[in-house]
């Protein structure tokens, strides 16, 4: 079966992002960019399914400006077969990305679509579910294990109370959680090979989608600072402070 994997270019997870002093936006100049960690897990899962013989072809798609081709190449180096870049200026909202992905799904007709559960920039956690609704597909969100069983997909999900397993009809959508797998590193030969893999560029117009903003970011600000605390000498002093100063234990 064919698998479609969506990836997003985001600020590297090690970077502590700050609001600009005028509050207009976050400071993104000269910041290291990378593939969203949850998307990397999505690519890895597709590659493992291909290695297991379940998936025959992996198509990787990213929505964004030209720079996101770098993340598509990363996915190709990890084992995806070909890439699709949906070229969009600015920062499309999750609903628009879902509409664009629906257009790609209609063309590619994958049996399995794997996405990260959220991107670590907007922290929205929406795109996979929205794509599910738009494409009329079932979803296994926050997946920690997936198994394909004939024309069904069994997904174990990380939920508030523990783990839940669902059976989904195919084609289906999976969004990845942290424990689904541990992504590999791309080898140098694979990075070189990835440069020669096909990468098509398409546009919202090609996919019949009109980009329309629904939400405006008015301003950004740093969160309230915590005032610096103190170091206590020993457990006795800690208990004393908690009882008599903070008054949080009795």
């Amino acid at each position, binding site marked *: 079966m064919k698998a479609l994997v969506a990836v997003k270019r985001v600020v590297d997870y090690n970077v502590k992002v700050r609001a600009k002093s005028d509050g207009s936006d*976050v400071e993104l100049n000269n910041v290291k960019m990378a593939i969203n960690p949850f998307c990397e897990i999505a690519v890895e899962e597709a590659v493992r399914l291909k290695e297991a013989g379940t998936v025959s072809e992996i198509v990787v798609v990213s929505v964004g400006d030209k720079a996101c081709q770098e993340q598509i190449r990363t996915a190709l180096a990890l084992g995806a077969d070909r890439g699709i870049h949906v070229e969009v200026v600015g920062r499309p909202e999750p609903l628009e990305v879902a509409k664009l992905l629906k257009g790609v799904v209609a063309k590619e007709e994958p049996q399995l679509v794997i996405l990260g559960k*959220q991107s670590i920039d907007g922290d929205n956690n929406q795109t996979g579910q929205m794509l599910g*609704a738009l494409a009329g597909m079932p979803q296994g*969100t926050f997946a920690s294990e997936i198994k394909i069983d004939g024309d069904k997909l069994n997904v174990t999900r990380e939920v*508030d109370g523990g783990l839940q397993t669902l059976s989904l009809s195919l084609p289906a959508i999976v969004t990845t959680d942290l*424990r689904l797998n541990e992504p590999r590193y791309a080898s140098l030969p694979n990075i070189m090979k990835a440069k020669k893999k096909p990468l098509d560029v398409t546009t919202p117009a090609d996919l019949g989608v009109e980009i329309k903003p629904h939400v405006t970011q008015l301003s950004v*600000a740093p*969160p309230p600072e915590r005032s*610096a605390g103190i170091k206590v000498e*020993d457990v006795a002093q800690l208990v004393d402070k908690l009882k008599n100063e903070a008054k949080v234990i009795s």
Partner: protein
Amino acid sequence: MKTLVIAEHDNTSIKPATLNAVAAAQALGGDIDILVAGENCSGAATEAAAIAGIGKVLSADNGAYGHQLAENVSLLIADVAAGYDNVVAPATTNGKNTMPRVAALLDVAQISDIISVESADTFTRPIYAGNVIATVQSADAKKVITVRTTAFDAAPAEGGSASVEAVAAVHDAGLSTFVSEEVAESDRPELTAASVVISGGRGMQNGDNFKLLEGIADKLGAAIGASRAAVDAGFVPNDYQVGQTGKIVAPDLYIAVGISGAIQHLAGMKDSKVIVAINKDEDAPIFQVADYGLVADLFAALPEFEAAL
């Protein structure tokens, strides 16, 4: 203005997160109804009717909604939403799972994880693991919103006497079925609702050592949490994880033991009222947010701490 709140429940009772979502709905103003979608959920519907300030409870009681399958419940909510200006749910794993489908069905954006209501169309929400707070304005006539529960004080669970109306519509997409679940049974309070949380990290070294936290948790009536590192290492199950993509907690007292304090972990607990950090590495970033830091070997400090309580 009319707001529909989606109840978080287990069919027999209402989960505390619902009360936080009701509080956010109250901040929006106007009339508030609650939708309880489940199977044999009359217990939850009765509890929902007792929440103060609710107009009516809509009870959709059907096998299609028993396990909160997003494919079915989202169709129901999108249908019921026709009569409302806002649809609000707590940002639990259920809310996160279902509400984006609702928004897409209604062709509107979802505003995720709001921490304040500035006006009827303007909200604040954390982005970049809470390192930045964005103020966002929605242009959609109908708003789909999930609520960060720790940011809104719970509405009173008692004092209301709303009527309960049955919703007859049955939406079964026929795309998904429930297979099984592994739910941890615990006598301790729920992590996201506890007033005291004690969490362990990589420094705990193994799952057995979490017993050192249990004695303290029992004495303090605390819930037990963990960092991602401890969950990834298999010390404790996934539902213990506190952080950017795990659970968000804001108890009166948060005790971080053997946790270095990666920004992703801080994102899940830095709004706690009092933070205690116990770590043998005095340069660990967790000390920068701790009110009380103890530089010590946790294997010596924890038994001593338990004995002193």
